[in-house]
């Protein structure tokens, strides 16, 4: 009981896992598609090259399952970057420590200005984002920011550096609803190369973060891999393995999966592995076919066309009009972004697009901040 993910993860080997995914046959895919409850072997088949001819069938099923569980709704959320200070080096990120960019951390007044703008757009769920700079944006700063804005949002999610269990408990006490923490890549050796310096270079500490969150009793945990760093099939599989472990162990917690693909940024790392639109669709559908209930989230990293279509394929939450720089909405629109966004449409335009597609944008789903 309560084994942490690392114990399970250590029994797997990257190459062997990848080989077993690539060895799946059309028959395995057909078996997986014919089932109503699928396991991780079925998931492997669904993300394998053999599943490519079945993409339309996967999409149709994924759409039906999503409709059955979530109806015709899409949850809307928006990120707010609080700071671009960071003491880590991550090869793919504009905030990386060695990048010579002006650093900024929002003050209370800045935060309130940004919030006023986001509220005027109708957002009620917010995602607070920081880099890892414990002196300036450590737990006290995050907690303070949450307290400052908690009456204006029904729930607050954070995407910040991995914390310790008691720190999560403290933030939950202060009305934290969800935490997103992406492993970036589950390939231990490659992870080291992308995170040569800073606390983030500790692969295991990051890998264990969702377990600490689970133990702290958080409502929701968001997982994901950054596609482009390593083989997306193996990274998807390990994300699914992680999800299954967490669901079984911390069964009172909800889970969401995100699908970030490497985007251009200042200092630019070219994706090592290309994940095409078809690959991404396949992955999203495979997650939906693995799990009826998991929330699947799509950011503005993706293009207009892609987002217009993906809302029918299994996605359940969407951000819009996002800025990935601190103060990017009103305080300092010109500061440097973490990465370039791709879908630049306004919130209103996205809402309209959803409605025209027979979907209802949901602004408030759950009240966590009484």
């Amino acid at each position, binding site marked *: *009981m309560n084994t942490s993910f690392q114990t399970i993860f250590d029994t797997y080997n990257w190459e062997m896992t990848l080989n077993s995914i690539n060895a799946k046959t059309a028959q395995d895919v057909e078996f997986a598609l*014919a*089932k109503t409850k699928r396991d991780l072997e079925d998931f492997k088949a669904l993300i394998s090259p053999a599943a490519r001819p079945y*993409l*339309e*069938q996967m999409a*149709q099923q994924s759409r039906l399952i999503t409709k059955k569980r979530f109806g015709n709704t899409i949850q809307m959320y928006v990120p707010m970057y609080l700071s671009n200070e960071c003491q880590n080096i991550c090869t793919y990120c504009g905030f990386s420590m060695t990048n010579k960019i002006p650093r900024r951390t929002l003050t209370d007044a800045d935060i309130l200005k940004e919030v006023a703008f986001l509220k005027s757009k109708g957002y009620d769920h917010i995602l607070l984002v920081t880099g890892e700079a414990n002196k300036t944006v450590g737990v006290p700063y995050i907690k303070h920011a949450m307290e400052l804005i908690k009456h204006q949002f029904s729930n607050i999610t954070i995407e910040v550096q991995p914390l310790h269990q008691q720190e999560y408990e403290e933030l939950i006490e202060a009305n934290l609803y969800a935490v997103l923490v992406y492993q970036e890549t589950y390939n231990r050796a490659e992870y080291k190369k992308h995170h040569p310096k800073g606390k983030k270079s500790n692969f295991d500490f990051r890998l264990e973060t969702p377990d600490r969150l689970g133990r702290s009793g958080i409502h929701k945990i968001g997982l994901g891999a950054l596609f482009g760093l390593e083989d997306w099939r193996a990274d998807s599989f390990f994300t699914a393995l992680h999800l299954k472990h967490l669901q*079984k162990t911390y069964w009172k917690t909800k889970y969401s999966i995100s699908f970030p693909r490497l985007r251009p940024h200042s200092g630019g790392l070219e994706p090592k592995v290309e994940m095409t639109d078809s690959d991404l669709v396949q992955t999203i559908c495979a997650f939906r076919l693995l799990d009826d209930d998991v929330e699947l989230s799509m950011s503005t990293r993706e293009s207009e066309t892609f987002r217009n279509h993906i809302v029918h394929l299994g996605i359940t939450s969407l951000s819009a009009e996002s800025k990935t720089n601190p103060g990017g909405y009103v305080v300092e629109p010109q500061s440097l972004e973490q990465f370039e966004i791709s879908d630049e449409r306004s919130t209103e335009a996205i809402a309209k697009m959803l409605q025209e597609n027979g979907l209802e944008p949901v602004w408030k789903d759950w009240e966590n901040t009484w």
Partner: protein
Amino acid sequence: MNDLLTIADKTFQSRLFTGTGKFSSNQLMSDALMACESELITVALKRVDVNNEQDQMLKSIMRPHINLLPNTSGVRNAKEAVFAAQLAREALETNWVKLEIHPDPKYLLPDPIETLKAAEELVKLGFVVMPYIHADPVLCKRLEDVGAQCVMPLGAPIGTNKGLKTLDFLEIIIEQSNVPVIVDAGIGSPSHAAFAMELGADAVLVNTAIAVSQKPIEMAKAFKMAVEAGRIAYNAKLATVKHHAEASSPLTSFLN
């Protein structure tokens, strides 16, 4: 294929657990239980004369490879269950206990609240707790959280032989569980047992269906084979019914 079942510190070759009630004679019981090769046999503590070393029922099933699993059948609340388990530990020299609390004398339906309470207490006292419960997925997780080493959800009310009436919930339990799931009560025929195993149950517990059949020894063999067949089928990954998606306009054409 080496496919052993592990519960706490013990491993089992056989995934068929059996009970000792309702047989027409001790001899028949013993023969039937040997025929099905069960390694875990549950006995109602209330039926055993623990002070009598000559207890016929016990004597007739004691074999080196057989583990006796005392059950607390007959108790009505957590307090009585804990007491019964302690008695059993002393009498039968085992810290394993099948926790059964059914205050209702008619359907013998388990009390979830008292069961959870008793399980928590018994785990603290060092017992390997095997709780008999409704097919309630949340209760199963709660029991796992307090340290129960397996869960034993019912397929149908005890003694009814109706099969897996709780199918939808059993599927959820099997999907979610981190501890072995043993389908208990309701299994009335070998096909029910095979079905439970095909679903991914780790074991089944059968008593009435063997004990009250016309030929218990033959039936015991049939159950042994059914459980094995179901397990092999589960491992071999069943092909399932095809569920056709609703035809609608292509969703992926934008990719080309």
